[in-house]
């Protein structure tokens, strides 16, 4: 599905990704973890074509992402910060993003699921952070693409909405989708992810299932397992 080969990326003198290779074909949720500044968001942005790697190749669904933007027809993305044109109404924004692709969308189902009906005719500038994140979720999931990239999906959500989000991701997994996400909340990762990619200083220190991470670090708790990786107890690829 996503094949990353030997990509490197520097911003000025700061080398963020170092000769990184990764192949994601597993269905279900793969969580990309790592401390702040380890290159998680840069890696996701490279897959999305937002950041251009200095070296290396990325293919999505077998298509070289530099050649054509069409590969994004089958790719959904939830940005980390939900910030929209302040003077547009929620309904107009959803319609606008929906019109950018030539396919049927399922926004009504999502609007009902995240209970956004009362906000449809409000301007985006007047919404609270949590409500904006729900709009963000609608925009990300409405195309029903086989590959979904979520950057901190839980930010700003109240407990009820967070439960709904988990439920929604669960249903997406059952449809056999490939979901890539980053999060700092380990309990969320533990609950919804099957696979972990652990990044540190632009390199992959671990890539595999959560069960393997636990057995290799000899820690049952994910947070402790990650801490064990960080403290350099092991370096597994």
């Amino acid at each position, binding site marked *: 599905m996503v094949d990353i080969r030997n990509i490197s990326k520097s911003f000025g003198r700061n080398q963020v990704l170092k000769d990184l290779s990764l192949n994601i074909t597993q269905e279900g949720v793969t969580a990309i973890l790592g401390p702040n500044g380890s290159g998680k968001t840069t890696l996701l942005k490279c897959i*999305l074509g937002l950041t251009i790697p200095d070296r290396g190749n990325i293919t999505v669904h077998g298509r070289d992402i530099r050649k054509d933007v069409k590969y994004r027809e089958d790719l959904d993305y939830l940005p980390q910060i939900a*910030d*929209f*044109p302040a003077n547009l109404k929620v309904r107009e924004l959803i319609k*606008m993003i929906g019109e*950018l*692709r030539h396919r049927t969308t399922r926004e009504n189902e999502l609007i009902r699921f995240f209970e956004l009906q009362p906000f449809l005719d409000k301007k985006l500038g007047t919404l609270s952070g949590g409500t904006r994140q729900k709009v963000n979720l609608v925009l990300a999931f409405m195309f029903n693409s086989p590959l979904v990239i979520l950057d901190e999906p839980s930010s700003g959500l109240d407990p009820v909405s967070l439960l709904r989000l988990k439920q929604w991701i669960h249903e997406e997994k059952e449809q056999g989708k490939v979901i890539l996400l980053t999060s700092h909340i380990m309990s969320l990762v533990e609950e919804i992810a099957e696979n972990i990619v652990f990044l540190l200083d632009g390199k992959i220190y671990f890539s595999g299932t959560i069960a393997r991470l636990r057995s290799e670090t000899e820690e049952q708790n994910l947070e402790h397992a990650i801490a064990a990786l960080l403290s350099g107890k092991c370096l597994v690829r």
Partner: protein
Amino acid sequence: MLKIIKYSFFDLLRSKWSYVYFLFYLLLGSVLLFLNNDLSGAVITLMNVNIILVPLIATVFGVMYYYNSGEFTILLLAQPVRRRTVFTGQYLGIAGSLALSLVLGLGIPFAAYGLFRSAAIWDFAVLLLTGVALTFIFTLLAFNIALSNENRIKGFGYAILLWLLLAIAYDGIFLLLLAHFQEYPLERFALTATVLNPVDLARILILLKLDISALMGYTGAVFKQFFGTGAGSLLSGLVLLLWIFVPLWWLQKSARKKDF
């Protein structure tokens, strides 16, 4: 592209600053016409407003819009849409909405004054046309500056500096150079220097149309002598268009390489 133009256009059109801008022109046009009762005088006053204020507003709006919509732009860029479509669409949307405020704000009082039955209609049309051209040019320059400066303060500073240079300081520097080198033949230099500044071009276009040699200054006189009124207008119009196409090409080029 049309969808992106449409939504940027409506987003800006609904902001209160668009109304302020529109009302300002409405008020200015009405005061000049109905209190002054002198149509060609009003056109000249408006020309001066046009070549100072319109670029300033376009610069400020262009930079502000770019920085404010940064996160949303990233969302658009993650859709199956080409980068140049996103940026060209946003640019045309906001420049279009600013131009509409200008055209309606000035057009309504002039139409109410009975402009369509007067001979000054073409003077007025040239005035609006150059105003629209300056709006498109300076919004685009501001977009270019914002795109290549991540730091908002720097971007804002550079954009204002560019406006200051082209709309205010350029004439002074130009005049100093002319005075300093007055023993030399300066026609070519004067022509080139004028073509290099869209504000000067707009001014000459209006003055050529109004045919007021007293206000034309050295460059205007050279321009007229060199090309005659018809050819001069055509040339300055074409160069104004170049001032849109070259920066637009540059915008698309730098957008292609940028990391978001």
